[in-house]
């Protein structure tokens, strides 16, 4: 009886181990790492954008999605339409709530091929999930909403602040692990702020692990001084601008006058 009980215990333990192994096969080992080469981008006088490369290690055979975003924000944009049936002009303002100012999404494959809809919406991966996340007002129906969401993406892509790509993440296998790497252009249009880099490891249509890094973009030197003065001391900034303009105007006038140009 006791022997039988011991055997059944061993069988039970074996079943539990097998079940755990089966479950484990759907989860990446906790090896996902992320590193952004530029975690601090200073905006100085000669700044014309930068590059950010994201690299790290993941479990072999996992698909990856790399998302770089600004925090959710609010944006008001002029909405063009036809007035009097044929004249294109601004007809009003559309407000976009929960819209990040910057949104880059890169995948080893297209997100919709490797992730289920539930996970895409949960982690806001891809433009369709962004469509569900952003609030647009005022719109009268879903059709109109979709139209203005698509226009919003086109506007953001034209400003180089939104981009989506697949197949551009380079992966190599090393010692049973997968090394990944991608380099993206960092647009000068991206304003100062803190940006979040999130890498998602994907298996069986689900996010199994994620890792995060930060990129801080900050004004520095003369740019910071002038921007601060314009915001915090507008009167002095205005007077300095006027004096400088008058000085240059008179200066050039006198130089040309001396050379005989003005006579």
């Amino acid at each position, binding site marked *: 009886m006791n022997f039988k009980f011991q055997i059944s215990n061993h069988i039970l333990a074996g079943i539990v181990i097998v079940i755990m192994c089966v479950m484990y096969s759907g989860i990446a080992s906790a090896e996902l790492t992320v590193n952004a080469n530029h975690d601090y981008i200073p*905006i*100085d*006088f*000669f*700044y*014309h*954008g930068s590059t950010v490369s994201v690299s790290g290690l993941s479990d072999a055979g996992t698909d990856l999605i790399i998302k770089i975003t600004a925090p959710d924000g609010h944006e*008001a*944009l*002029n*909405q*063009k*339409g036809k*007035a009097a049936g*044929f*004249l*294109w*002009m*601004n*007809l*009003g*303002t*559309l407000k976009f709530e929960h819209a990040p100012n910057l949104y880059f999404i890169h995948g080893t494959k297209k997100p919709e091929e490797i992730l289920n809809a539930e996970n895409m919406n949960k982690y806001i991966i891809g433009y369709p999930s962004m469509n569900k996340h952003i609030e647009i007002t005022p719109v009268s129906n879903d059709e109109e909403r979709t139209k203005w969401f698509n*226009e*919003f993406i*086109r*506007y953001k892509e*034209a400003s180089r602040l939104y981009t989506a790509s697949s197949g551009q993440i380079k992966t190599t296998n090393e010692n049973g692990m997968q090394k990944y790497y991608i380099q993206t252009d960092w647009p*000068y*249009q991206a*304003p*100062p702020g803190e940006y979040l880099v999130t890498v998602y490891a994907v298996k069986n249509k689900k996010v199994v692990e994620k890792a995060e890094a930060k990129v801080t973009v900050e*004004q520095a030197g003369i*740019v*910071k001084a*002038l*921007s601060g003065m*314009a915001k915090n001391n*507008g*009167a002095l*900034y*205005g*007077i*300095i*601008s*006027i004096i*400088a*303009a*008058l000085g*240059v*105007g*008179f200066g*050039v*006038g*006198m130089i*040309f*006058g001396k050379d005989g*140009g*003005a*006579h």
Partner: protein
Amino acid sequence: MYLYLPVALTSINILIPVGLGLAVGLLSGLFGVGGGFLMTPLLIMFGIPSTVAAATDSTQIVAASTSGTYAHWKVGNVDFKMGLHLLVGGFVGGLLGVQSIKILRAMGNADFVIKMTYVLMLGIVGTYMFIESIQSMRNKKVEESKPEKKSGFSRFLKSLPFQTHYEKSGVTHSVLVPAIFGGFVGILAAVMGVGGGFLMVPVMVYILRMPMHVVVGTSLFQILFNCIEVTFLQAYTNHNVDFILAVLLLLGSTVGAQVGAVFGRKLKGEQLKVILAVIVLVVTVKIIFELTLTPSLLLSQAGGH
């Protein structure tokens, strides 16, 4: 070489603003216009936010009009008395115009009114100047032999009180005339978001009957003070003046204004009017195209026209 603009929050090749400044400064020195109606849309086209473009443009106009006024003053082409009277009217008109825009924005049809005002004013002024200048170039000899015929309108102007002689311009008007027309231009300029030089020049030529060369210098003098006021208000209330962009623009525009003043003296008044009329008409056609062709993007940054 690229420079980062701290208020516009964008990077720009320095050749673009310097080149634009040079071109628009040339027009400023030639015709006595600030060039806002050309410069602001050009800056927006090169990626400068519309609010920053309009505010910073006024700063560079301060430099270009200082340079131009100085050049014209040296050769005696500025009527300070007329300029001051126009300025008083323009200042009051500007305040009224700003209030009108506020009311129109609240009613939700500001953009329609602004765009239509642009097309109508530019179209009417450009067409009238073009036809009149061509006719007067053809008929100059015939008209010179005829005594000047006074219209009912000019008789009405002469009947107004406070008549005064403007020595530099060689004309006599009531002080109310430049003040009222200055006010009218001030309202339109505020509605359209421009300095108003291209409207003020025709008013001086056709209504005040001032000689073209004095018109250019006096218009620049008046624009200078308008733009000083606008620059200060934009910097103080809206924080939209980009100093670096303004410096790059004015490096070009001050030189351009001087070159324009030199060329201007080599051209005849009628020739100047024809060229300005053609530029105004080209801008009108461009705006009509923008209004009728489907834009590439249906969303744009809020705040501009």
